[in-house]
C-alpha cells in the first residue's frame, strides 16, 4: 500500500516498483485522484510500465475466455425430477 503522507507535499514521481503494486487499484478505479494522476504521469514517461499495464489487461482478457465446463445431463434429469416432486 502506498504511503498516503508522501502525497501531500510535492507529489514525488511514482517508481516502477510502486506502480506495479497499484495496477489493480488503478483498473478498479480505487485510487485517490492524486495517486491516479501520479500513476498516469508515470505511465506517460515509462514505456515499460505501459507494457506491464497492457499485459495485466491482456491477462484479464484471457482469463475471461477460459472455457465453460459442460453440464452433465444426468444431473439435470435428477433436478427435474425433484422439481416435479417438490410441487
Amino acid at each position, binding site marked *: 500500500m502506498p504511503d498516503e503522507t508522501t502525497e501531500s507535499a510535492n507529489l514525488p514521481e511514482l517508481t516502477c*516498483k510502486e506502480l506495479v503494486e497499484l495496477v489493480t487499484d488503478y483498473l478498479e478505479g480505487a485510487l485517490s485522484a492524486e495517486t491516479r494522476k501520479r500513476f498516469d504521469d508515470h505511465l506517460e514517461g515509462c514505456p515499460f510500465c505501459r*507494457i506491464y499495464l497492457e499485459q495485466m489487461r491482456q491477462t484479464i482478457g484471457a482469463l475471461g475466455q477460459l472455457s465453460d465446463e459442460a453440464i452433465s445431463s444426468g444431473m439435470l434429469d435428477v433436478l427435474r425430477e425433484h422439481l416435479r416432486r417438490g410441487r
Partner: protein
Amino acid sequence: MTFHSNADDAELIAALKRRDEATFVGLVGRYQGSLLRLALIHTRSRAVADEIVQDTWLAVIQGIDRFEGRSSFKTWLFRILVNRARTRAERENRSLPFSELIQEASEPGEPAVPAERFLGADHPQWALHWAVPPRSWGESPEAKLLASETMEHIGRALERLPPAQRQVIILRDVEGWTAEEVCNVLEISETNQRVLLHRARSRVRAALERYFDA
C-alpha cells in the same frame, strides 16, 4: 442490509415458486459452469463437486418458497454453494474456513514483481525503476493468448494460487462478476477483495510472462 433484488429477479422467483421447469432448466444452464468451478476450489474431485452443485440446486428448490429477496437471487444461490462446499471440505479435512480468506488477505503477500527486477533504491538516477523490464507480447497477441496451450497454462496457474486468491480471480475475471457481487457472496470487504485479486492477477501475468519468454 440493502435490497438488491430487481424486477428480473422478482419474475424469476415467482416462476421458481410456481415450479416452472423451463425457468429452472434455464437457470441451471446459466449458472452450472460457475457453480462447478467454484465447487472445484474446495475439492479436487469432480464427482464431489458435482454433488455439491446438485445439493445446491436441491436447496434452491426446497428453499425458494422462503426466499425473501433480501439479497439478489444470484448472491443467494452462490452463498448456498459456498456454504455447502465449505461444510463438505471441513468434513474432509480440506477446510477453507471463511476466516482464512480474510487472514490470507491480511498477511503481507509476495510482491507483484520480484524485487530483483528493479534497480536498487541507491541507484543515482533510476532508483526502483525497471532493471529487467517486461517485454511486449506483441501488437495483437490475441491469437497467442487464446491458443489452447496458453489457456492450459492459465488454468494451471489458477490451480497453483492459494485458495482465497483463486476464488476471487475466478469469480471476477473468469466469471465476470462485479466486485460487489464477490464481496457479498464471499463475505469479505472491498479492500480484501482487491488485495486478493491483485495478488492473483499478478501471479497469472507472471506465469504467462514465463511461458511467453521461455
